[in-house]
């Protein structure tokens, strides 16, 4: 049942460029899609381990910068005459490196900051993002600082025997973003339904008990942080190659806020939550733009957010699921557990 709905949604999203001819809306969908990928990765931390990272944009931005710099090349003086010179690589290499390096940063942040919880963790992550932003702003030799990295090439995919496909048009980019989003969704879904995911859930609900049954806190949370950061890095890379210019503004705090809004309004801890929340809050500004002055658009945005949380404090997807009698997300799928013959893949 659930799989069918997921597949239908995927088919619907895949069909969009066939009938949606308005490039402005398609553009909005692509940028929204990129942020939804970021939101899904944030959900892995916030919704499945209970750790609220308000510095998530750092991984997104690192991914964007790594990918851009890999494909543009750089020449950075380190000390005296010693330079690090990098000649441009194909953008797809940048995309992969973005995932790896963002994931590695996730590892470092995870190791360092999971010793603190709650509000303290929130502030450490904000601080991390700000420090990274200030490095991007001030290490001009590498990042060009506020002068921005421009002319970032579009992603190119080598097709065996058919030459290269440059993903330049919105049509191409839409499917690229959709593909990355679908893969991320699949990865996260498999992860949270494996024993790794159960360890994360255990830690979120009752850390003391989880530890007592042998769940390794640092390892589990760091694993979530690495995968989450890697996916955010992939989203950042897509952003850099689609918008084709990045400056330290990619680390803006409001972007993290946008992702948190997508996750929490949609329903944290629900796989579909960030997608639903993302579509609503990604497209809301597009619909508000023609009907009210700019300040009123923001006011409405804030008010809609408050109203959603008042009506559905657990987020849209879990609340609707409860209303439709589907019990809580996840509960229904195990309706007949005692008959334990269900196989692992049915639960994926």
């Amino acid at each position, binding site marked *: 049942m659930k799989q069918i709905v997921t597949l239908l949604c995927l088919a619907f999203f895949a069909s969009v460029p066939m009938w949606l001819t308005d490039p402005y809306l398609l553009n909005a969908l692509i940028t929204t899609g990129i942020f939804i990928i970021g939101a899904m990765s944030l959900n892995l931390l916030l919704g499945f381990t209970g750790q609220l990272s308000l510095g998530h944009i750092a991984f997104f931005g690192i991914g964007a910068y790594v990918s851009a710099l890999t494909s543009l090349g750089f020449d950075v003086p380190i000390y005296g005459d010693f330079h690090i010179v990098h000649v441009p690589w194909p953008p797809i290499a940048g995309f992969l490196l973005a995932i790896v390096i963002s994931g590695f940063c996730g590892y470092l942040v995870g190791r360092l900051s999971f010793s603190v919880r709650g509000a303290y963790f929130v502030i450490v992550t904000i601080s991390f993002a700000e420090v990274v932003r200030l490095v991007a702003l001030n290490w001009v030799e590498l990042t060009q600082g506020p002068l921005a990295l421009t002319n970032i090439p579009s992603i190119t995919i080598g097709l065996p025997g058919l030459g290269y496909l440059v993903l330049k048009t919105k049509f191409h980019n839409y499917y690229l973003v959709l593909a990355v989003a679908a893969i991320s969704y699949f*990865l996260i879904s498999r992860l949270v339904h494996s*024993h790794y995911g159960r360890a994360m*859930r255990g830690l979120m609900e009752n850390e*003391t008990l989880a530890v*007592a*049954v042998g769940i390794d806190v640092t390892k589990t949370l760091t694993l979530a942080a690495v995968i989450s950061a890697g996916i955010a890095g992939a989203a950042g890379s897509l952003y850099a190659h689609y918008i084709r210019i990045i400056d330290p503004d990619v680390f803006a705090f409001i972007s993290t806020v946008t992702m948190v809004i997508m996750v929490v309004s949609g329903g944290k801890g629900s796989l579909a939550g960030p997608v639903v929340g993302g579509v609503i809050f990604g497209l809301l500004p597009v619909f508000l733009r023609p009907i009210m002055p700019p300040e009123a658009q923001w006011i409405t945005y804030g008010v809609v957010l408050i109203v959603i949380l008042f009506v559905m404090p657990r987020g849209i997807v879990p609340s609707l699921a409860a209303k439709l009698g589907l019990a809580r997300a996840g509960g229904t799928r195990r309706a007949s*557990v005692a*008959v*334990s013959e269900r*196989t692992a893949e049915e639960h994926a």
Partner: protein
Amino acid sequence: MAETVLSIEHVAVHFGGLVAISDMNFHVNKGEIVSLIGPNGAGKTTAFNVMTGFLTPAKGAVNYCGADLKGKKPHEIADLGLIRTFQRTSVFPNDTVYDNVLIGLHRQGELKGKLGLAEAILGLPRARASEKAQRARAAELVRWIGLEARANDLAGSLSYGEQRLVGVALALAAQPKMLLLDEPVSGMNASETHTFVQLIRNIRDRGVTILLVEHDMPMVMSVSDRIVVLNYGRIIAEGPPDEIRKNPAVIEAYLGQGAKDVVKEVAVHA
């Protein structure tokens, strides 16, 4: 002499100026059911916290199966097969009973070799087989503790007594060699307690050594092979139930907090 599984040697714990435990010594042998009793605030839970790595003692050592537990983190101790339950928060409240047990089983999901994560995510055969085995094992455990009918209910929605059972199932899922139970029958009615005593014996018969903290004296008397009595952070008596029941120091210790009842009940069960 029987093989010693757990030994507590000269352990002392202070909170600021307060002495929670002073110089505690005792041991548990393989296959034994030992109870740790004492009035409230005697240091029983503190002792559990020391044994399972949640607290570092100021002095002394805890040895488990020949290994010093000093400096080991709680999850590492759990990995050695020393598993505990908790007094208050014994379950993962927002998960179903079945999922609670699955979380407890998580260590069984770890595949040998470095590719465990990739295998799990990609759903490769080995991971699928392991997942299937875990699910079967979880269903079996849920059945075994007699909560089959509540398998799909949220653990937080269960009665207090049922939650204790889930707590035990969870602990069993983690494959203990030794189980530390913190007030397992509090909140249970008489018939539930009776069933639970059977369950504990069953667990022991499967080769699991058991140490429990409990206030329910009749239960303690009926289930224990040996009893260790703690008061004001020190051990005041140790021995089989019959000896403890007659020990004047123990009766003394319990005076002032319903000791008469205790004495009476102990007498009835004698």
